[in-house]
């Protein structure tokens, strides 16, 4: 029965099944979906943003950078926290018509964390005009390490299978580090600078929600989603 379902499901879900996921995501029509929204805040006194001294190519990269690993806003909201609803089924995961853009500008990855549906092709852009390289460390997908010299301002890397986090580094500029999130479901969000996030069209039900921050680690929360209602949460992460 499960096999038949997988066969009849969309290609992405089939790919997830090939990837060996025990529970493949199933696409269904969602008509009475609920919304999960809220924020993730830092528990305790917020740390001051760390600085990185630039040791190479200062004419392009600048002299000093803010370390993007842990950014806490004025209200205590944490930026770049990944919120993953562990949904077994829901609306179809669509690969975007416009490829997600991952830019390297002034020797920083922009965005610092890129979330995209599995199967997407990433447009990797080098806006700096100096050598960068895109070095991903993957377990499920093949790891990539491609040079992006001046004459190649744009290269494309396809990420077939769901996997997160995929660490992305530039070996030429060791401080450059970011993450890719190849999502298995559409119910994945990243918090904004104020720590807020919103996930819509969730089929009603009880869910485990994984929240992950690169410095603060992973935590699982539980939520209950009701049809056509908004569930508000206020979660906290702390230094372990």
């Amino acid at each position, binding site marked *: 029965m499960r096999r038949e379902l997988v066969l009849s499901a969309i290609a992405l879900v089939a790919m997830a099944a090939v990837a060996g996921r025990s529970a493949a995501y199933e696409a269904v029509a969602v008509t009475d979906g609920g919304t999960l929204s809220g924020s993730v805040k830092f528990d305790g006194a917020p740390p001051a943003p760390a600085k990185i001294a630039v*040791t*190479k*190519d200062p004419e392009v990269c600048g002299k000093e950078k803010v370390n993007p690993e842990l950014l806490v806003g004025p209200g205590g909201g944490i930026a770049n926290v990944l919120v993953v609803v562990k949904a077994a089924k829901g609306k179809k995961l669509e690969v975007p018509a416009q490829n997600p853009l991952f830019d390297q500008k002034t020797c920083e990855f922009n965005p610092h964390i890129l979330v995209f549906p599995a199967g997407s092709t990433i447009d990797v852009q080098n806006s700096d005009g*100096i*050598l960068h*390289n*895109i*070095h991903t*460390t993957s377990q499920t997908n093949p*790891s990539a*390490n*491609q*040079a992006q*010299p*001046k*004459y*190649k301002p744009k290269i494309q890397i396809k990420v077939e299978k769901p996997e997160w986090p995929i*660490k992305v580094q530039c*070996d*030429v500029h*060791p401080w450059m580090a970011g993450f890719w999130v190849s999502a298995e479901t559409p119910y994945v969000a990243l918090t904004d600078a104020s720590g807020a996030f919103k996930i819509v069209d969730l089929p009603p039900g009880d869910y485990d929600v994984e929240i992950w921050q690169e410095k603060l680690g992973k935590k699982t929360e539980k939520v209950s989603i009701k049809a056509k209602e908004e569930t508000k949460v206020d979660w906290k992460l702390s230094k372990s």
Partner: protein
Amino acid sequence: MDDEKRSYAALWLVMSLLLFVGALWAIADDNIFRRPWKKFQAEFNRLEIQHLKDAIAAEQQHLDADPAYQEATKTLAEAKTAVSSGEHARKIADLQRQLRQAQQQDQSKDLNLRFVKSELEELRFLYDDALHHGQPTEALLAKIQQREQLRTERQAIYSASQQGIEDLQNQIKTLESAVKTAQEAVDKLTATRDDIEQKLEGVSLGYLPGPKASPPFIGLDWQPKIPKIQQVVLEEFDRNNFDKPIARVDRCTSCHAGINKVGFEDEPNPWKTHPHRELLLGKHPPEKFGCTPCHGGQGPAVNSPEVAHGNFLDKNGHVENVEFIEQPLNRGTKVQASCLKCHAGVQHLEGAETIARGEHLFEELGCHGCHLVEGYDDLAKEDGVSAVGPSLRRIGAKVDHAWMVRWITNPHEFRPRTRMPNFMFQEEQAVQIAAFLLSATREPSETWLAAHPAPSAPGDAARGKELVETIGCRACHALSPDEVAGQLGANKDIAPNLSHIAEKTDARWIYNWIRNPRTYSAIARMPDLRLSDDEARAITAYLVTLGKKQPGPDDLETRLADPANVAAGERLVRKYGCPGCHDIPGMESESRIGVELSSFGSKTKEELFFGDRTDVPETWDDWTYNKLATPRTYATKWIEQVMPQFDLADEDIRALLVFLASRTDSKVPGRYVYHAPGADRVVAGRRLVARYNCTGCHVIEGTGGDIRRLYQDQLTLAPPILMGEGEKVQSDWLFNFVEAPVPIRPWLKLRMPTFHLAAPEANTVVGYFTALDQVTVPYVHIERAALNQANLEVGKLLTSKDYFDCFSCHQRGAVKPQGPPEGWAPDLALAHARLNPEWIVKWIHDPQKLMPGTKMPSFYPGGPPDVLGGDDDAQIRALRDYVVSLGLPDATPSPQQAAGVTTGGAGPSQ
């Protein structure tokens, strides 16, 4: 008188009956009772027929469901109907009738032509004859001309008839062509099924053929063949008692008929397909190698499975031997004992994992220190000193006396994972042994201590901890009781666990040892990490915080000094064979105390002493398993045994058992032996790799890299994977590098240690890597004059900031990249002396393929389109030439040039 009248009819009847029954019995015995293989083979044939029929049915089902097949059969049926009925059919019938008529008429036309031809022959003869005899010829000539006329006419008639027939045939063919095309389309789809059907005919009885769809006779479906003895003859494989070569005959496939056939994997024995058939039988085709060379057993025996195998499984799954059979079957992993008969090395040999493990354990546990084994007699001692255990020559300078007594009593108490076995000494005996060792090593210990003072000042323990954790110590050593660094077998450590090191020794010894282990012991496996005095003091300060001294027995020092104890200790050391593994002064030429094991694998149970263990089944396997698990188990009240307790894991015992089973006298003729080029260099190299635990840091031949456990998140900081090293680096560079390593990768905190290898050992390393990669010419000669100037220009352009910007990371001699050294990449000015130019090409093509996880990114495919017309290969060759030109001396005359010889060097690009 009476005798003549007596009737013997009854006796005669009885005797006849007996004779008759006897004859019947003889026939039955000869054909059935003593021929179990017939039953097995017949059953296999039935199975095979069944499999093929199932396959045909499945294929037919598949076809029936295939719309293309449905379509094709429909077309065929329609075409057939068309030619057998209606207008079409009438036309064909009409044409065929015409054809028959024409053919009949054709015969008479042919005949008429022949007649006139014969007449012509006759007339020509008469003409010649008349001419020769001077008779008139005119009349004959006229007749000939008339006949020739006639022949031309008849020839024309016959040709027209032939043409008419061909026309008719073509017309019929055209009308029937739709059927032919449709049939061909169907045949194409049914090719698989037809193939299987053909196979089915092949395995069925030859003399009962029949139409494919229906059986030849009612109730006599496809008939199995009559069973036949199947045998393989291996010429000159064995030797008889007079050492003359004799053939070996294997008839195993008479019963094991499916052994080399696909599709019987799930059948029970004897019909089952060989496990890992493709690998094992692919490399060793049974028609060439037979079965018994690997499996053992009695090849020619077919009368009983038990006798043929020489053993059988009882109802508990335990192997029981059959009496008086010398070659019992090697069951399970024991079959791997045969690999070493033909393969020089079994390490990394696919399918030989168990014996490889056994061989490795045998060498690394030091079994050959006590037991003489052919092939291992030189291994135990290097330069006359034992090499398995640490040298005890200066032990008095190293260990705490109380610790020493505890260690000798039971080493597993202090380090459960040590490879040193437990001799189960009483404390009294341990004191005696310690007393002897301390007394025998007093003078060398004191001399060493005098030359190696304690560190000048205490070091910084925090820095020491950081060093221990970053420079590579943990590749071999664990630091907490539960940690495992390098593993030997299932439950032994390669190097000591340091979690309680301070209980064993002191700061002075540690400091001097880590500065250079070879100053303490010439046979030390531990390498020199080229520590500065500061670093050595820091590490010492950290290590002495791990554990603390424990008190020993009362008046220990008095007892250690007692000459009676020293003398008793010396007797114990000799009796228990300590010099087998340890270098002990005055015992350099002690002989081995254990029995020789060179032909242990061929021992019969009568040659094995079971002591009081009546519960152990009397088989070689049971004896050996119990001996390895509990070495003194066969001791009796009168017979003492001294072999120590190794506390091996079950899988290690079984692996050692397989290795011991391989120790036999049997020799295999040369033509069966596998000769891989450089096999001996590979075997020697692997032994050296094991001795110095190179795999603690490096992944070699796909295994090892134990320290990578600490770098899972940052694999670029782990030591390099040595994949294709022989192909990568120049041999003389590698030789010099292992002799005296220089840092190549500035970003690594880990240090490649100096092993202080002797020149032959360094040569073994080079030989090993070049043999692994099958490098035939290990030398490289590059000179500037031979490099293509245009290539150098292009290469230089490609490395510039506008293109690959190589020197953003790579050092180039004195020109250093920006930023801290952790971010740098190897010095390209060293490439000409270090790298093989052809390897550079492969590397630039795809660095990730050669070293997964490397920081070096891929620039190709997709080189700049405006350089060399965007030709990737030409660009890479230009880069290679430019890279090897960096740091290359400008014009050093090579020996060849001096001799006036022109050489090609690294070669200009093609």
